[in-house]
């Protein structure tokens, strides 16, 4: 409830900003200015954005704002594990923009020559998600090492799996999960359904899940973070709109949505 309200407030605040950004030449926001100049030429038609599962909520919102700011555009999303998205882009999947939850998966497509010059637009850290009733009595990261606690993790090749492994190594513990999910939303789902006692997700996921899960914070000295790079895909058939979308994510408007969702500045 409060989240919807805050999104509505964010949209209400953002909309006039957008209009200002698009309409006036004297806009003081640099990145919005870039968006507006692109808008005048060929920013229209549809684009497909491949984005990390953890971006589901915030990018859906950014997509709506982008469409409102650029009438005639249509943004379609394919959310999933960054590793899987990177592989499918390298195999020729029709993506116009790729937003990854780790630099490693972005490098995968950059080194294959399918994208260039990625820009980091956000950071994210880990949090433990538990069912509201806390059946595993989890109060800290060390509890995850107990064999009685059922833990869901992301697979090791997915960013959320890599970052979770870093947290465990920082904490000096070994965690044997009951399941390794395809992406972070898969982990969250298993926590929401109550079939596991805890899941390692991003702080943004705990926030987006609202009352369906509780978060157990991980101390800063143990926690690990990942950065989110974004780039247009070389094979894009609508490069102008793709670049405009990337610019929008990097703009102050995009940043506002991301911060509301719990992402940290890069």
């Amino acid at each position: 409830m409060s989240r919807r309200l805050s999104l509505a407030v964010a949209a209400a605040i953002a909309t006039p900003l957008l209009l200002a950004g698009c309409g006036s030449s004297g806009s003081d926001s640099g990145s919005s200015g870039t968006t507006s100049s692109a808008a005048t030429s060929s920013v229209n038609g549809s684009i497909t954005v491949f984005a990390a599962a953890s971006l589901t909520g915030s990018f859906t919102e950014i997509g709506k704002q982008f469409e409102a700011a650029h009438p005639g555009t249509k943004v379609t999303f394919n959310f999933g594990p960054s590793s899987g998205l990177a592989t499918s882009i390298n195999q020729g999947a029709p993506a116009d923009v790729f937003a990854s939850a780790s630099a490693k998966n972005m490098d995968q497509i950059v080194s294959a020559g399918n994208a260039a010059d990625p820009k980091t637009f956000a950071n994210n850290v880990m949090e433990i998600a538990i069912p509201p009733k806390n059946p595993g009595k989890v109060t800290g990261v060390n509890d995850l090492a107990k064999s009685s606690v059922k833990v869901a993790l992301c697979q090791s090749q997915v960013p959320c799996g890599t970052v979770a492994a870093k947290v465990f190594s920082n904490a000096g513990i070994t965690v044997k999960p009951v399941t390794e999910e395809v992406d972070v939303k898969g982990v969250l789902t298993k926590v929401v359904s109550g079939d596991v006692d805890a899941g390692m997700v991003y702080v943004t996921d705990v926030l987006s899940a609202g009352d369906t899960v509780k978060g157990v914070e991980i101390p800063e000295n143990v926690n690990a973070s990942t950065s989110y790079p974004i780039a247009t895909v070389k094979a894009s058939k609508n490069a102008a709109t793709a670049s405009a979308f990337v610019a929008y994510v990097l703009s102050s408007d995009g940043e506002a949505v991301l911060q509301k969702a719990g992402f940290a500045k890069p």
Partner: protein
Amino acid sequence: MPSPPPARTAAEVAALTDRVRPPWALGVPAAVGAAFLVVPLLALVVRAPWRGLPRILAESDVRTALLLSLGCATSATVLAVVLGIPLAWVLAKSTHRITSLLRALVTLPLVLPPVVGGVALLLALGRNGIVGRWLDAWFGITLPFTTAGVVIAEAFVAMPFLVVTVEGALRSADRGLEEAAATLGASRLTTFRRVTLPLVLPAVGAGTVLAWARALGEFGATITFAGNYPGTTQTMPLAVYLAMESDPEAAVALSLVLLAVAVAVLAGLRDRWLRTGSTL
């Protein structure tokens, strides 16, 4: 005026052969259809990393996944046979009004997307499921994320194949033989065991193989209900799907193994249940 048919000349034979050849209107789509089914399989064989194959297949993960797959598919098939044949019998013999409703319900998993089956299983047998919560509270049994969970997911999806196959055979089986057995003093169970079951044995065999193959390939219900962990719940199809994200070569190699298993199954069946004109 019976006279032997005149011997056909070579030209006549050729003309006849020509007449039974499919017309273009059927031949072309038939060829496209065949290519549509064969080319992807061919691509798997052509693109397979043959050189790296021994290394990939020797990796313990692959062997674990394959053994788990074979074990789970077989267990699921046993479960399907033990529960499915009696169910097929009831569906075939009962004339009760609700039988047709029951038949529709038990064959539903046949047409249901397996992922939906997985969600349904989670809601029924998950830790907070309508049955699962009591299993957990009374016996401390939780099925998701266990190998037993994989078997249940596979049996859920595969059993209808067996039930449908066996039920069809039971319906068309000769009732007279059963009645004869009954008049000769055989009990109903003896009649089933000694007369009915042997009559439908080919269908039981075919249904069993179908169910096994379906269980072996099961993905959606498994990953949804049983999760994914190497050694406990990561079966071959899951391993293929997940390998596609990190190591496409390994995914191709794993696919090749499943293709070989499928070919072996077909070859084994060739003479028994896959004759020309068979309903399977």
